[in-house]
């Protein structure tokens, strides 16, 4: 009897803990449970011409979100972009609710905006920018792809 009560209490405790963790995750990261998200990417690179844009595949979207979830927070900073490569903008739309989140990334700085929440994250290895550039692939003019690829290379020591 005592063993059964302890087991029941332990189960309840574990359930509460798991719920609390799930709630924390959904508040602090881009991950949402049981939802499909569509991601439209725009490469900010031109000044006069329209910037190229494309859709991410579901797998690429999941990868993007998992990378975002793992990034540490950063202090708010300004994007100091200029002529030439200016980063990426990703518009994440929840297919069920229609809600949009905007992710702006440039030189390892990520700005994540849900409309009500604005957070800054640090992507030291620029994984998001690499992922997004690769997702552009053949949609991008080779000269532009190569120019952005050069921008993403780490500086020579």
């Amino acid at each position: 009897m005592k063993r059964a009560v302890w087991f029941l209490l332990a189960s309840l405790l574990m359930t509460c803990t798991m719920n609390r963790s799930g709630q924390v995750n959904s508040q602090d990261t881009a991950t949402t449970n049981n939802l499909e998200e569509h991601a439209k990417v725009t490469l900010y690179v031109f000044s006069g011409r329209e910037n190229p844009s494309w859709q991410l595949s579901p797998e690429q979207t999941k990868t993007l979100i998992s990378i975002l979830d793992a990034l540490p927070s950063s202090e708010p900073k300004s994007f100091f972009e200029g002529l030439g490569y200016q980063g990426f903008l990703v518009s994440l739309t929840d297919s069920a609710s229609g809600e949009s989140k905007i992710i702006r990334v440039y030189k390892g700085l990520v700005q994540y905006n849900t409309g009500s929440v604005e957070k800054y994250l640090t992507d030291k290895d620029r994984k998001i920018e690499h992922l997004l550039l690769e997702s552009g692939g053949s949609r991008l003019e080779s000269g532009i792809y190569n120019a952005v690829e050069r921008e993403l290379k780490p500086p020579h020591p």
Partner: protein
Amino acid sequence: MINVELDIFSGNPNPKWTLSNKEANELLDRVMADRSLAAPPKTVGGLGYRGYIISVEDDARFQRAQLPSRFYVSAKNSMDTESWLLNSTESEKSVADGVRQVALDSIRSTNQAWSQLWSDYMQGKPSYPQLEGSGPTIGSPTPDIPPDTKPDIEGTVSTDACGALVYSSDTNFSFWNGDAYSQYNNNCYNFASNYKSNTFAQPGRKAYVQWSVLDCGNYAGAIGYASAYDGHTNGCWSGYEYLTCFVIWPGSDYHWYRLCANGHWCHKPGQTPARNYDNSGYWITDPYYCNRGPYTVFCSYRYFPHGWSVV
């Protein structure tokens, strides 16, 4: 003897030739019919085709007509005379085909663009000019004339020639950056024209001659040609102009700047915010020498009438 010099180069010597006796008589007839052809130049400087320098040597006819021994037929002064001079006999030996084409295109595009636009304006067509969508200005105070520090550029902007040069603030860009919609839907060309169309405006689109070639030139399809049709031309006529310039990222894109207050140039790189600094973070006092990133080709300066639209 009447000598003609095509004023087109900045570094190389200009092409020169001598008019035949018959052509000299015709030039005299033209000048006598329109004395403004022999006036001193109204605008000085600018890259590319600028007009002709006419030198008169020991010609009694010109002396009797009390014409100056040296005068300037400026670009946009008279399309007919400018074209005629370019086609005079001896010019074929002195002017290379490519140079001739540049000059001809410049004569045709600026004069065609302006004569058509002026005609439209005088007929009250609604597209010219529009003030809705125009960005703010700080009026037309005594302009700051940019210093002439560039060895390849001759002359400075003259207020006597162009009336008032119009400026907006070199620090307040709220008109462009104040809301996301404005920022994302207006590009460098919108900013340089100081006109917010929210269409990510393209050179030439308004006049159905949208650019298709990433080139500075004044031939059909090139940025220089297309933007002239919108109003970005080599000369001024409205008396209330912005000073702009454009550059090219070879094979990839174009970009425009506009002169703002205090001799500072400003710009808006695509969907990013408008600003007054270059890629190094410095004030832009000279777009020719500033850090333009991959936009390595400097094309030319242009004038654009305040209140005109781009789409």
